């Protein structure tokens, strides 16, 4: 269980490699990479967050995933600061004995991260116009699927 909030980019291949290293029980590794979409005139996405609470929220989400699914390992990385179109924003990876747990836990982590972790996105277009991204109702619906 690892959580990282950072400005720097990361290397998905290296992260996947180290996630599965040394545990021969792992049969399934699922990863999610979120990228800044370059739709319309969006040139940059700026990610603001709440230092301190962000890490606590991500750790709580990850702990809940480990409670719900038999995971051998997991990782959440979220970048902050200005990110150009095409840049990686977020990375979630899960490792389990079998694929279903790894898939479900990764999707759960993303759904909860999107609705519970204190990050805010601002779109900046080529002409300098700035706009805060609105929360999406579909993200709330996605998170509610996991209610129990």
């Amino acid at each position: 269980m690892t959580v990282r909030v950072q400005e720097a980019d990361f290397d998905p291949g290296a992260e996947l490699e180290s996630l599965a290293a040394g545990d021969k029980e792992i049969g399934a590794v699922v990863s999610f990479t979120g990228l800044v979409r370059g739709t319309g005139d969006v040139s940059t996405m700026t990610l603001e967050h709440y230092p301190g609470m962000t890490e606590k929220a991500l750790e709580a989400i990850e702990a809940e995933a480990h409670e719900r699914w038999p995971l051998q390992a997991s990782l959440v990385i979220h970048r902050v600061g200005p990110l150009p179109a095409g840049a990686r924003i977020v990375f979630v990876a899960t490792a389990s004995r079998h694929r279903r747990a790894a898939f479900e836990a990764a999707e759960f982590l993303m759904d909860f991260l999107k609705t519970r972790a204190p990050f805010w996105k601002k779109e900046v277009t080529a002409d300098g116009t700035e706009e805060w991204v609105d929360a999406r109702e579909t993200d709330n619906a996605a998170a509610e699927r996991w209610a129990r």
Partner: protein
Amino acid sequence: MRVLYFAWLRERIGMGSEEISPPDNVTTVADLIAWLKTREARYEAAFGDVTAIRVALDQEQADFDAPLTGVREVALFPPVTGG
């Protein structure tokens, strides 16, 4: 008590955090927001639609009717949009 503002709330209020000393009759988050709105026009503008505001008390998500007793850090922000 320290109050933090994020995203467009921070921009509208014009600062990321401030130390405040609300009067004794401010006992819940809802009271606090109502009191902030009376201070200056920029607070009133920022908190115009409270359905668009979320709150965390000492870095844990909370509701508007949560009591402020013993709370050291209140964060007010729009719904989160990370990931």
